[in-house]
């Protein structure tokens, strides 16, 4: 061994697993960080458009039904709880409990997506388009800035597409779990992604719907 390699060895105490996690979990976390940065960029763009615009942002309760958004939040938080339970059950070898909770999570995710589809339908009927509010529509009468519908569609659309892909992953994981083909780590990876989707919603809910 060269003296350079020996020096490196003396300072490197990470061994073969510097993060103390399997490569699957490490890669999943790296993916979550990069995906988190995507939403960080989108939320920053939203902040920029809102702060730089001279037309005041509407009060959200005038455009959205806040109790309905609260219901969506409740559904997503509850599905995260059942997902966490499924991950622990899978790790403890309780396949039945893991599968049941995976199914509860899938139902929660599907309900959330249904609520989002309803919300989109409502706001499109009110005149929202990606390029602004239709002239003469309810939203145009409210005087919403041109970027308001666009930021709504982009933020909730990107989040909704993550929920949809999370649902596909969960359905595959549930089917494979029922066939005893998914190890506990597979359920854990699906869980990490699902919790991330919930985490992103916390930011969208606060910054877009409440502030």
């Amino acid at each position, binding site marked *: 061994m060269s003296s350079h390699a020996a020096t490196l060895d003396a300072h490197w105490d990470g061994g073969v697993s510097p993060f103390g996690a399997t490569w699957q979990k490490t890669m999943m976390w790296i993916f979550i960080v990069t995906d*988190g940065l995507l939403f960080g*960029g989108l939320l920053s763009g939203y902040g920029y458009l809102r702060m730089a615009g001279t037309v005041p942002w509407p009060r959200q309760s005038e455009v959205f039904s*806040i109790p309905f958004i609260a219901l969506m939040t409740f559904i997503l*938080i509850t599905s995260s709880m059942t997902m966490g*339970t499924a991950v*622990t059950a899978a790790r403890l070898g309780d396949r039945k409990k893991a599968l049941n909770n995976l199914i509860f999570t899938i139902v929660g995710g599907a309900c959330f997506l249904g609520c989002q589809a309803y919300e989109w339908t409502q706001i499109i009927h009110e005149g929202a388009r990606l390029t602004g509010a239709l002239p003469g529509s309810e939203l145009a009468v409210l005087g919403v800035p041109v970027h308001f519908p666009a930021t709504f569609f982009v933020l909730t659309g990107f989040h909704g597409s993550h929920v949809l892909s999370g649902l596909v992953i969960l359905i595959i994981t549930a089917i494979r779990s029922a066939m005893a083909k998914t190890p506990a780590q597979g359920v854990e990876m699906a869980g990490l992604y699902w919790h991330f989707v919930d985490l992103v919603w916390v930011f969208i809910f*606060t910054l877009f719907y409440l502030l």
Partner: protein
Amino acid sequence: MSEGAQNPYRIYRTTWILLLIITVMMLAAEALHMPRWFLVAFLVSFMFVKATMIAGNFMHLRHEHRRLVITVGVGILVTSAILLAYITPESASVFEKTLR
């Protein structure tokens, strides 16, 4: 025996209840028409509390190796801070130019 070993599922229920309580508090603050500065500070603070609870308890980040926690936390927080630091003065400048 630790609490987690007695009932490993309790942490999820506890976190779920706390998240719901915080969400109700946030909704109440918005509905009560609090002063804007208070509303912003209150909502943003509790947003981060909720995010920490989800990452720590649901995603088990508090049980992970310190290096992983630092990589994830610093990666997201520093990048977001840089974005915010550039965007806030830029948007204020655009806002003033548009008004002129």
